[in-house]
């Protein structure tokens, strides 16, 4: 996983609550056996018509959001299935940061494991940025070590993130390698449990 400390990028506002992983990446794209290449299928049923042409009334298809890397969403983002294809698709499409009032539990873990910064903020702040982004164009810069987001007007908003997750994101640590350092404790546990 790539280390990430600072990120500045264009915002795409998706003003919907309870966005489930079936929407993020529909099931017909779960059959690949690779980890990459899912970005093209992100929000597929919202972005594309049956015949594969773009749905013009879906905001993500508006050229002004091209290259967006920060997603603003409604509460309970990522609910439903545990498919990690959802964060893979978001990441592959180019989203580095997702800001929402709340995230579903399984999605939260999955996204962090793929180096996506998830930020919980209160709804009013998200709304404010959503409006600005819809009306014009909005860039935000996220500073993970200092846990702040700064908008173009210079407004600085702080956020919470568990220290443990922050450390892993900043260092891009491989979970398995870290856990394998505890090999002895795991063996001890296994021996104890079997005694």
């Amino acid at each position, binding site marked *: 996983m790539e280390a990430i400390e600072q990120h500045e990028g264009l915002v795409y506002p998706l003003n*919907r*609550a*309870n966005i*489930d992983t*079936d*929407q993020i990446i*529909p*099931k*017909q794209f*779960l*059959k*690949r*056996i*690779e*980890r990459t290449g899912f970005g093209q299928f992100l929000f597929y*049923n919202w972005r594309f018509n*049956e015949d594969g042409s773009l749905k013009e009334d879906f905001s993500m298809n508006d050229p002004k959001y091209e290259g967006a890397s920060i997603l603003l969403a409604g*509460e*309970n983002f990522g*609910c*439903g*299935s*545990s*498919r*990690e*294809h959802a*964060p893979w698709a978001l990441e592959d499409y180019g989203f580095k940061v997702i800001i929402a009032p*709340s995230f*579903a*539990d*399984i999605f939260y*873990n*999955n996204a962090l*494991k*793929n180096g996506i910064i998830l930020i919980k903020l209160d709804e009013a702040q998200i709304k404010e940025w959503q409006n600005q982004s819809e009306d014009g164009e909005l860039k935000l810069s996220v500073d993970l070590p200092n846990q702040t987001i700064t908008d173009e007007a210079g407004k600085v908003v702080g956020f919470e993130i*568990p*220290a*443990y997750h922050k450390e892993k994101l900043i260092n891009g640590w491989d*979970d*398995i390698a870290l*856990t*394998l350092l*505890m090999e002895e*404790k*795991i063996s001890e*546990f*296994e021996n104890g*449990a079997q005694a």
Partner: protein
Amino acid sequence: MGKPKTIIEKVWEQHVVHREEGKPDLLYIDQHLVHEVTSPQAFEGLRLANRKVRRPDLTYATMDHNVPTKNRDVVKDEISRKQMETLRKNCEDFGIKLADMFHPDQGIVHVIGPQLGLTQPGKTIVCGDSHTSTHGAFGALAFGIGTSEVEHVLATQTIWQDRPKTLNVKVEGDLGPGVTAKDLILAIIAKFGVRFGTGYVMEYTGEAIRKLSMEERMTICNMSIEGGARAGLISPDETTVEFLRGREYVPKDEEFDRISEEWLALATDEGAVYDHTVTINAAEVEPQVTWGTNPGMGVPVSGATPRVAESDNPYEVERALEYMGLEENQPITSIEIDHVFIGSCTNSRLSDLKKAAAIVEGKQVKDTIKAIVVPGSFSVKLQAEKEGIDKIFKEAGFEWRDSGCSMCLGMNDDIVPVGGRCASTSNRNFEGRQGNGARTHLVSPEMAAAAAIEGRFVDVRHFAGVAL
């Protein structure tokens, strides 16, 4: 004796390998279930890093999500075939037991775990699938994980987890005649919403829960994730012990007596405190039908779709009604369907099929409807055939299929067409779940069976010829 504890705390504490202030706990995993869709990238990761599976003996794999449910010999879809082939190869290379498409133990992963007795009280169980919560019915701590976590468990047999908060879902009173476990869990989610369980592990308690069979308990725990909780469980009791007695992977004879004592001791202690409690009165629950695009959008069959202006979230309600092709304040019994699906890890066990068969016996599926029954496992299918249940369905006009996930998520050929409307015994009614543009109404097997006959939703309690 120390402080009274919930079963959630007891099972958790027994599995902590490592704990450090400010970090999640490192938990040991007793049983890892694997299927073809969420595992290929995990095995690939192991290979790339030259790692082994730490405990192949605690790992068990099957194929369920995209197996065909008819004509098994030809998997038409090239990519599905490749995904299943990949699982076979991975299991061979890493020494993992696999119940493949033709194996007598094949089935939906959450149906075969309990059936084989791999699922036991007090175990920690994970699977790359969010309905792993099903196994909680036995008093196991069971939850869904993503593919990176699958890889982590394969390599280390452990997982990092934040200690959850505990939520008591207390069901008071008794379910009325003709009201099922599925109606109860749908009513719970309709009442408390799709995120009341976020950050919690739920325990279902109360008299009504105690009276449920194991299969009914599985239906309840299965849908914990639809209420936002990664895991939901029920304290083990005699019903649990009796269900497990004699199953393949369960200890035998004296060892069984000893272990069943241990299981019973896991039950939540009198006076244990939960972080939060919600209460529902079972007597007030009616047969349920979802009308919208998340499982919380449900009402009693006697009800109607909401009025947009009066709802808490008019924008979402309006969007959902539009997707579903329904009017506001439309009576549920006026909704006509064209597909019926009886199956999925929520409702595809023998008792589910029997109850649905009792409704359709001697009747005919309406001729505009395509109705299919997909048993949860190969063994459920065989048993049902032994008892003549397949005949009842077939004579009524249902298709009788081989086991798998099938139309629950339509990764194989079993999909609902654009604009099609399905009465489904599965657990998710998300947009496009059963097929692009498909409309899903979640119901119990009995309600789905009655809808197949009538062509629209009816209250199964007043359904012609059914004695309740």
